[in-house]
């Protein structure tokens, strides 16, 4: 980060048309394909993240529908066992890795600078890089699937079935290398969120005045930074086991259980990574439609952080049946009960916000109200699996499949859909259609519950997970038929959302800057916002800058029209970590192809490693370094040396 001492005269100015024109000249990138590829604008990448994640959601959904047809009756033969196993593995990893976290990154990448009153993320080029390498990691894994070498050992990928001996094809190598690339993406993204959160807030936006979504995202980002190394390492070691005969996870010198520890010490925190920002969406957006601030801001924030911290102490509850010692079993079982308490804080905060507010029943609000109930259902079925003896019955049955879908659809998808109804107008300038929205909500909500509520029973009736077919006479047939019907209704609901977005993007009602009367800074700028987000750097005096007029709780007022303009170049204000006092002026990078090229080179390096093409691997490593050199090469426009020379 290039930081300049702000020894220039920084007068507070009104934003006028000439200033806007100057800022637009400074911030707007090239048009055309080159501009599209080289932009570093966070709003572009936010939308790309969301669009890409939705494409993966559709792919994962289609995979699920094919499986549901296979399971609609006993002894069906639509799929071979191998096809089924690849489909359930792809479905799981697509939804958990390629949809659930990136879609939330999309919201956060788009909204972070707007919520915080900044002009971009702290590291715009890193932002571009994490998007591109996410896209390429997804394409990499799907390339294996399309070539007939899809992963076939589930998203959890337990050795020794994942080892060379039992799985000699390149299926697992596509998955292992793809996941290492994906880990680079989520780690880079997380680092960017943390620094942006700490240093790019508008002056006055002290750390107890930021929107909950940013707390959820930054908490999840810390989770990523501490958990992803475990899984990246595990996949790397698995790859060396497979390709070079090391013995980390085989049953010779190694330990198959080591994989499970490394995997779940990552994958349990990951559950919170894919729900905490979604809970943040609800905590920020539900109050808009209840026409009051969220009840219990401080306790909700503390609960968010507490969940993540405890989330690192419960991974063993995924392994209750592996024969671990009684003492460990007791500790992890108890910890898994306790982690429910912070979630209860959030649920009662939302309910209190509804009861003490005046809800406007928009489509978004319906999604959030539905979310609260589904969140609770997914939560209590989780509590059941916290009880070790009960879990040793429930685990690996459809009960857990039902549970994970209430978590991922209930807490992630419903919040995302509601969030789209709230912020799609900000992103496009047009409102989503409310009439179609009602149909969208009810189809999704009913389809989801028809599919997955009976699935709890399927599990209690003893149907194991991951079986490509089942016999007659065990009481599983009828519930499976209902689930299949529900799955297709749910799919129709998702389709309605896509139709709504497609139609409304062209023909929706104009949104204006603030269609819902929201409290936070993004509603202070136009829809869609200009490239530079805000013409003047806002100064914030409360948690709800746009509601100060009605709440009138202190004499202070945020200043949104008058402030620093910073138009001496591509510049952004950085502030101190806790109090958000102005600290420095950050020079922002121009558009560049370097992140894209670095991501391409890294992916090509992965492909060369997969093929054992070591010369190619060497070349791509050099190209990766070349791209990083271009990226990091000192630029006069971003340096403060010349400026200091003036002094």
């Amino acid at each position, binding site marked *: 980060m290039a930081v300049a001492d702000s020894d220039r005269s920084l007068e507070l100015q009104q934003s006028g048309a000439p200033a806007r024109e100057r800022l637009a000249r400074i911030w707007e990138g090239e048009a055309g394909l080159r501009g599209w590829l080289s932009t570093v604008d966070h709003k572009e990448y936010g939308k790309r993240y969301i669009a890409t994640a939705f494409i993966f959601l559709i792919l994962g959904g289609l995979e699920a529908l094919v499986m549901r047809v296979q399971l609609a009756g006993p002894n069906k033969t639509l799929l071979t066992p*191998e096809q089924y196993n690849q489909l359930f593995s792809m479905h799981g990893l697509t939804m958990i890795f390629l949809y659930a976290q990136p879609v939330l990154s999309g919201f956060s990448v788009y909204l972070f600078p707007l919520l915080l009153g900044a002009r971009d993320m702290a590291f715009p080029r890193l932002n571009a890089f994490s998007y591109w390498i996410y896209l390429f990691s997804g394409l990499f894994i799907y390339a294996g699937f399309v070539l007939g070498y899809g992963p076939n050992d589930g998203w959890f990928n337990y050795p020794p079935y994942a080892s060379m001996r039992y799985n000699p094809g390149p299926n697992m190598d596509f998955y292992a290398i793809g996941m290492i690339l994906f880990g680079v993406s989520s780690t880079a993204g997380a680092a960017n969120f943390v620094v942006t959160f700490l240093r790019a807030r508008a002056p006055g936006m002290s750390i107890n005045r930021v929107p909950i979504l940013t707390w959820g995202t930054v908490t999840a980002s810390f989770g990523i930074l501490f958990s992803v190394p475990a899984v990246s390492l595990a996949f790397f070691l698995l790859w060396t086991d497979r390709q070079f005969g090391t013995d980390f996870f085989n049953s010779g010198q190694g330990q198959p259980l080591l994989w499970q520890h490394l995997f779940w010490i990552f994958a349990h925190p990951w559950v919170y990574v894919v729900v905490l920002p979604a809970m943040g969406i609800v905590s920020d957006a539900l109050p808009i439609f209840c026409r009051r601030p969220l009840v219990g801001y401080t306790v909700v924030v503390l609960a968010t952080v507490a969940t993540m911290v405890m989330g690192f102490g419960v991974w063993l509850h995924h392994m209750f049946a592996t024969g671990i010692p009684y003492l460990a079993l007791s500790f992890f079982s108890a910890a898994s009960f306790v982690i429910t308490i912070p979630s209860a804080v959030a649920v009662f905060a939302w309910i209190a916000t509804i009861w003490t507010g005046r*809800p406007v029943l928009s489509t978004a609000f319906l999604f959030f109200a539905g979310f609260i109930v589904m969140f609770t259902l997914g939560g209590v079925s989780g509590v059941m699996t916290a009880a070790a003896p009960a879990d040793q019955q429930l685990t690996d049955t459809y009960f857990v499949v039902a549970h994970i879908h209430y978590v991922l659809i209930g807490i992630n998808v419903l919040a995302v859909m509601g969030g789209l109804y709230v912020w799609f107008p900000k992103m496009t300038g047009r409102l989503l259609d409310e009439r179609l929205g009602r149909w969208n909500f009810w189809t999704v909500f009913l389809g989801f519950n028809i599919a997955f509520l009976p699935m709890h029973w399927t599990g209690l009736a003893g149907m194991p997970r991951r079986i490509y077919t089942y016999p007659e006479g065990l009481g599983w047939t009828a519930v499976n038929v209902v689930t299949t019907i529900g799955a297709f209704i749910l799919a129709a609901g998702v389709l309605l959302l896509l139709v709504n977005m497609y139609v409304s993007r062209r023909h929706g009602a104009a949104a204006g800057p603030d269609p819902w009367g929201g409290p936070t800074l993004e509603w202070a700028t136009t829809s869609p916002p200009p490239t530079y987000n805000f013409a003047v750097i806002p100064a914030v005096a409360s948690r709800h800058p746009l509601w100060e007029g009605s709440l009138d709780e202190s004499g202070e007022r945020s200043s949104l029209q008058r402030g620093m303009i910073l138009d001496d170049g591509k510049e952004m204000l950085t502030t101190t970590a806790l109090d958000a006092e102005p600290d420095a002026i950050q020079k922002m990078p121009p558009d560049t192809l370097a992140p894209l090229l670095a991501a391409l080179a890294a992916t090509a390096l992965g492909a060369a490693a997969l093929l054992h093409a070591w010369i190619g691997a060497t070349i791509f490593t050099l190209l990766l370094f070349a791209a990083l050199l271009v990226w990091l090469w000192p630029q006069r426009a971003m340096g403060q040396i010349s400026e200091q020379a003036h002094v």
Partner: protein
Amino acid sequence: MPTPADPAMNYLEAFGEKAEAISLLTWALLILSIAVVAIIALLTAAGVTMRRTSLAAEDAKREPVLRPSGGLSWITVGVALSTLALFASMAWNAYTMAAVNRPPRAPALTIEVIGHQWWWQFRYKSDDPAQTFETANEAHIPIGAPVRLEVRTQDVIHSFWIPALGEKIDLIPSQTNVTWFEAEKPGVYRGQCAEYCGQQHAHMAIAVVAETPEAFQAWRVAQLHPAEAQQGGLIEGEALFQARCSACHTVRGTLAGGKLGPDLTHVASRLGIAANTLQNTTATLSGWIADPQRIKPGNKMPTLDLQASELGAIRRYVQSLK
């Protein structure tokens, strides 16, 4: 043969001391969970209906923003009640964990369970080597006595699970896990591999036949017998079996001593074949021997392209192995 109690895999109804303690805990948590969801759903629905405005979404901003007090008490009361319920559940959980951890009496029997892709090997252990024997996919146990299980695997991870008799236990390479179960009533209890183990994970079922101690003793004595010498029409079948099947299968008392597949010494007395994928009848047995890859695609038993007469001879021989 005892009458099947309940061939289903439902574990809310239990048939042994251990499984009963677990199913009681499961029921309690289930009822509590349903109550919690009902309360939250009602609170949410009532809040939405009673507090709603009549404004359309686009007019949201016409409703004034206020900050009524009193919200925080919702959190205080709600979280306090949730915490109480959670700690009560935790206490019950700890009690159940302790109760099912060890068998209440000394086990009457130790069975070694060895998982294979995709079948089960059961070795009845004894201090006296002459009392040790093996069977596959179908285990018999006496009622009213705890049975000790030592589980391990020959290849990948599997999980041994008889829902009506207790919880599942994983079979992990390079370690032996120990657990126990007990059946109260005679019956056939179905189980199935519960940890994903590859292509035929779906077809890896277990039958546990619980019977009176006398019936169990009779079964045990019968299992200890090697196969009887064949005569008459079965000699051809035995020769063909030894030529085509003995590389993988053992029939004790004959030259067939293969270790890759299930021990077939008393296969004809078992309820099912192909890891209980099919009932053991003349038709299913013929179909299985003729083309196992059609029934369980990917399983380790090759399709041998037998002539019809060879197939019949082998099938008749196998059916004689009672």
